């Protein structure tokens, strides 16, 4: 019947041809017959045509029958299936709900995988978009790029249609639209938007030679300029200078990037022109602020571009050994780069949720088997009445299909509800969150899943029914073998999931147990953006530099007086919140390094009070004090790793070093290591410099306040204090340190929560399955148990026998599950911190848990068997 329908729908052309042939033959044969009866050929043909009736009408009638019968039989089967499901509502409900959860969870996770990993990037020809990075054997891969190097790459390469660069640092204070606002800016070369293929919603992108022009993101335009279309061509005030707005980006524009790009900045509000139209100065080869992009020419393979970039890197190494020694260039497709850090995690989640669905399918197959056993009489009767094996199979399959469709429909509804809910709770470092939705591709996936599950659990009873001939007791050993195999499969998959969940949870716990190197409780942090009069003079010792110190001092005096405040300080960057500034340095009294080899370290400008406020312990020497300012001797504090690495057998306190500015600075203390890059990443050598003595200051001081009361309650007092010192200074990114630490493990937490959820679901479904099978087996053997007990078997013996059977299935399942886990373990090794993929405690723990649940699931039916009255069970049949 399905084939007939298929033929009707898809092989229409062939069927039509056959019909034509058949009818033509008929007409010919009728004509021949008439001739044989003595008519002339003309009269014979005429009569044949007349008798035939209208050719088209005949065909039309046949066509109607063809479609009608197929649909008719289908509808008949569907009605039959629905009727038989309604006769057994608890079976139908369990099957449909199990499936709905399975399909719903799969659709939801697939929506995420689809939005983040599978959908093409939201730009034209996204496969030609490449990110370009500098590499260095010791500094690492994927290093941001020096402007002068970028300029040479762009000038010399021929593989790329366009190359553009982005500088994620500029910060702007927008004035003239009410309260001053801090806007995150990016400076990009003029080719940046054309390279991505972005069409402006309003106006245009800037030209290479334009200065003081700005492109607004859609949300900036909406929020601060009230969607005025006249904005293009008008002037706005950024950092006290006039900028002309040339364009507004479309609403759906998003810059797809890896969470670790752009110094952890997540969005840009305004875009200015980076320029780079003429060769940059020599020092621009030693600073590396840029993120570089290229669009390959059509038809140019990545390997060709890579080879060309290698040649360019070779030249640059030769020409500029001081800055480019050992430096290489690597191209990474944007599609790959943006999701590199989440790919494994997401595919792991998808695999986990597919496993849950497999367990659910096995359960439904088991239910269907039970039903098939119960319906053997019905089937035998129908077969005796002339229904063919094929017809019966069709009916069983239709029943499975009806279950699958109902379950999936419900599952899809669940997914439509859960996808937006999930999107709100996804960790922030997941790229492309805005692209996660139930779209055509997701629907196609769900449809496929529906078909696959329907066939999967529909085929099991079918395969079974071929082997089973009607026998007196209704159960063949083949059937219980099939059930046992399904249960073993379920248990082993459940074990794999539980092991995964156990490992990830343990990994998260290990991560959270890492001592971050500072204290997290009772600390409030907030960021300030200083207007240009502070920012412009960022050279050591200038008047503006003193202004910053003065602002910090004045704010400090007020913050100190807020009730509840214990200590406070400023820093340029917070722990766990992105990258640092990196400087090379030279230690007094050591032989100079060969050219191109640097001792370098991250450095952080901080003020006196910072270490105390955030709770970084001073291990040796002293902390910074108020007197460590512009007018006093230059000092630095190093962390323990730096002390160990550069002064392995000496006490660094009292030693001197210098940066590029040639001023000697004395080490006055050693402080504890801090996990600045993330809890799972080992601390690097680091140096702290008093804010007033920093050679090139970053102008975004972050205040750290330690209080004896709830830190969040200090926000308004802090805001008031800032307004008193300088009403033009915006304050944002207010968060407690606890929140920041928790946020830093967001992805890991999400992953372990999701997997644990799936594993629990799997455990639940699998134990229900085991319970069902054991109950069924027990009920089948009631009579046997009755006889045994009647001839003297104790209840204990029966209990042990049933339990033993369950335990055997569980044991086989656990062992095969452990084997699969051992095989799959290394695939998730990269997702784990502080725990091996084959962690013995975890694997033993989940095995015991699973075995215990399995035994419990068998115990209930076993007790029922043991407690049955032997006389009753003998009378039962």
């Amino acid at each position: 019947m399905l084939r007939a329908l298929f033929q009707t729908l898809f092989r229409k052309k062939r069927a039509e041809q056959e019909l034509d042939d058949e009818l033509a033959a008929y007409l010919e044969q009728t004509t021949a017959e008439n001739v044989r009866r003595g008519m002339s050929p003309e009269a014979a043909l005429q009569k044949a045509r007349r008798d035939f009736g209208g050719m088209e009408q005949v065909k039309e009638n046949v066509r109607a029958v063809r479609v009608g019968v197929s649909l008719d039989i289908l509808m008949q089967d569907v009605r039959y299936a629905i009727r038989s499901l309604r006769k057994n509502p608890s079976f139908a409900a369990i099957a449909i709900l199990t499936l709905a959860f399975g399909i719903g969870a799969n659709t939801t996770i697939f929506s995420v995988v689809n939005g983040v990993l599978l959908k093409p990037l939201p730009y034209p020809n996204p496969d030609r978009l490449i990110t370009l990075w500098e590499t260095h054997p010791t500094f690492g891969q994927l290093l941001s790029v020096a402007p002068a190097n970028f300029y040479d790459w762009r000038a010399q390469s021929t593989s790329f249609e366009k190359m553009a660069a982005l500088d994620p640092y500029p910060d702007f204070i927008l004035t003239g639209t009410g309260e001053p606002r801090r806007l995150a800016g990016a400076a990009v070369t003029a080719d940046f938007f054309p390279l991505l293929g972005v069409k402006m919603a309003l106006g245009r992108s800037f030209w290479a030679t334009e200065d003081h022009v700005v492109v607004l993101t859609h949300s900036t335009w909406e929020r601060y300029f009230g969607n005025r279309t006249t904005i293009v061509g008008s002037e706005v005030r950024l950092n006290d200078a006039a900028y002309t707005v040339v364009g507004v980006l479309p609403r759906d524009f998003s810059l797809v990037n890896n969470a670790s790009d752009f110094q952890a900045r997540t969005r840009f509000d305004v875009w200015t022109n980076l320029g780079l139209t003429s060769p940059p100065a020599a020092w621009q080869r030693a600073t590396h602020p840029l993120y570089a992009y290229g669009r390959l020419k059509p038809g140019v393979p990545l390997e060709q571009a890579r080879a060309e970039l290698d040649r360019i890197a070779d030249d640059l190494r030769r020409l500029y050994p001081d800055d480019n020694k050992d430096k290489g260039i690597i191209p990474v497709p944007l599609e790959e780069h943006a999701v590199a850090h989440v790919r494994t995690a997401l595919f792991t989640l998808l695999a986990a949720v597919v496993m849950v669905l497999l367990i659910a399918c096995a359960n439904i197959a088991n239910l269907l088997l039970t039903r098939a056993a119960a319906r053997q009489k019905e089937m035998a009767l129908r077969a005796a009445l002339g229904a063919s094996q094929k017809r019966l199979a069709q009916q069983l399959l239709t029943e499975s299909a009806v279950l699958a469709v109902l379950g999936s429909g419900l599952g899809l509804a669940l997914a439509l509800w859960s996808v937006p809910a999930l999107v709100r709770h996804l960790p922030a470092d997941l790229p492309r969150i805005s692209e996660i939705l139930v779209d055509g591709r997701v629907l196609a996936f769900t449809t496929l899943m529906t078909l696959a599950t329907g066939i999967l659990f529909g085929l099991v009873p079918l395969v079974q029914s071929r082997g089973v001939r009607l026998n007196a007791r209704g159960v063949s050993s083949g059937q219980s073998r099939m059930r046992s195999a399904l249960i073993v499969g379920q248990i082993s998959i459940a074990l794999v999931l539980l092991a995964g969940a156990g490992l990830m949870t343990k990994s998260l716990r290990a991560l959270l147990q890492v001592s971050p190197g500072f204290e997290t409780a009772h600390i409030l942090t907030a960021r300030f953006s200083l207007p240009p009069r502070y920012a412009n003079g960022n050279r050591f010792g200038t008047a503006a530099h003193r202004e910053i110190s003065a602002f910090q001092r004045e704010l400090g005096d007020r913050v100190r007086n807020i009730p509840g405040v214990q200590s406070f300080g400023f820093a340029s960057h917070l722990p766990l919140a992105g990258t640092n500034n990196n400087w090379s340095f030279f230690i007094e009294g050591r032989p100079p390094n060969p050219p191109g080899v640097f001792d370098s370290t991250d450095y952080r400008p901080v003020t006196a009070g910072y270490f105390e406020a955030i709770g970084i312990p001073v291990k040796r020497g002293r902390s910074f004090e108020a007197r460590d300012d512009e007018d006093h001797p230059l000092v630095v504090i190093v962390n323990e790793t730096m002390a160990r690495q550069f002064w392995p057998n000496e006490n660094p306190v009292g030693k001197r070093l210098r940066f590029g500015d040639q001023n000697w600075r004395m080490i006055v203390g050693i402080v504890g290591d801090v996990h600045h890059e993330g809890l799972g990443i080992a601390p690097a050598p680091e140096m702290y410099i008093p804010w007033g003595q920093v050679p090139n200051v970053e102008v975004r001081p972050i205040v750290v306040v330690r209080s004896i009361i709830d830190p969040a309650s200090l926000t308004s007092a802090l805001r008031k204090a800032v307004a008193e010192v300088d009403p033009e200074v915006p304050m944002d990114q207010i968060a407690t340190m606890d929140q920041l630490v928790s946020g830093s493990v967001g992805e890991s937490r999400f992953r372990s929560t999701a997997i644990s959820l799936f594993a629990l679901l799997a455990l639940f479904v699998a134990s229900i399955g085991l319970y069902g099978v054991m109950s069924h087996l027990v009920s089948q053997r009631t009579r046997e148990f009755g006889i045994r007990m009647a001839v003297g078997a104790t209840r204990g013996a029966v209990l042990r026998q049933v339990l033993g059977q369950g335990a055997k299935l569980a044991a086989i399942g656990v062992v095969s599950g452990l084997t699969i886990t051992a095989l799959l373990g290394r695939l998730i090794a990269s997702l784990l911190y502080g725990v091996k993929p084959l962690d013995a405690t975890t694997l033993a723990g989940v095995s015991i848990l699973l075995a215990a649940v399995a035994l419990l699931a068998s115990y209930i039916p076993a007790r029922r068997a043991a407690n049955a009255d032997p006389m009753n069970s003998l009378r039962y049949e």
Partner: protein
Amino acid sequence: MPEPELLQGTLDLLILKSLALDKMHGMGISRRISQITDGAFEVKAGSLFPALYRMEQAGWLSSEWGESDTKRRSKFYKLTRTGRGRFQAESQRWERISLAMASALRAT
């Protein structure tokens, strides 16, 4: 001769009957029905082919292409196992009905 109104199911039964002995093509079936009913029923193409297609899809008939006695490529129909069972059940039913009808009409 005008085609008498066929009772519902009569055409199906006649087709089953004509195919009971051997496979046949459409024209053959129509000729055979005419023969066995002594020309009482002349089945026209407009009724015959829809019925053949319907019965084939119901699984009573199967079909294959072959050569007719006049060497013309034609589609031959034959009874399936189901069709044979159907034919027996239908003819029994028909006999019961016609007996019942006959005795009903004879009753006074």
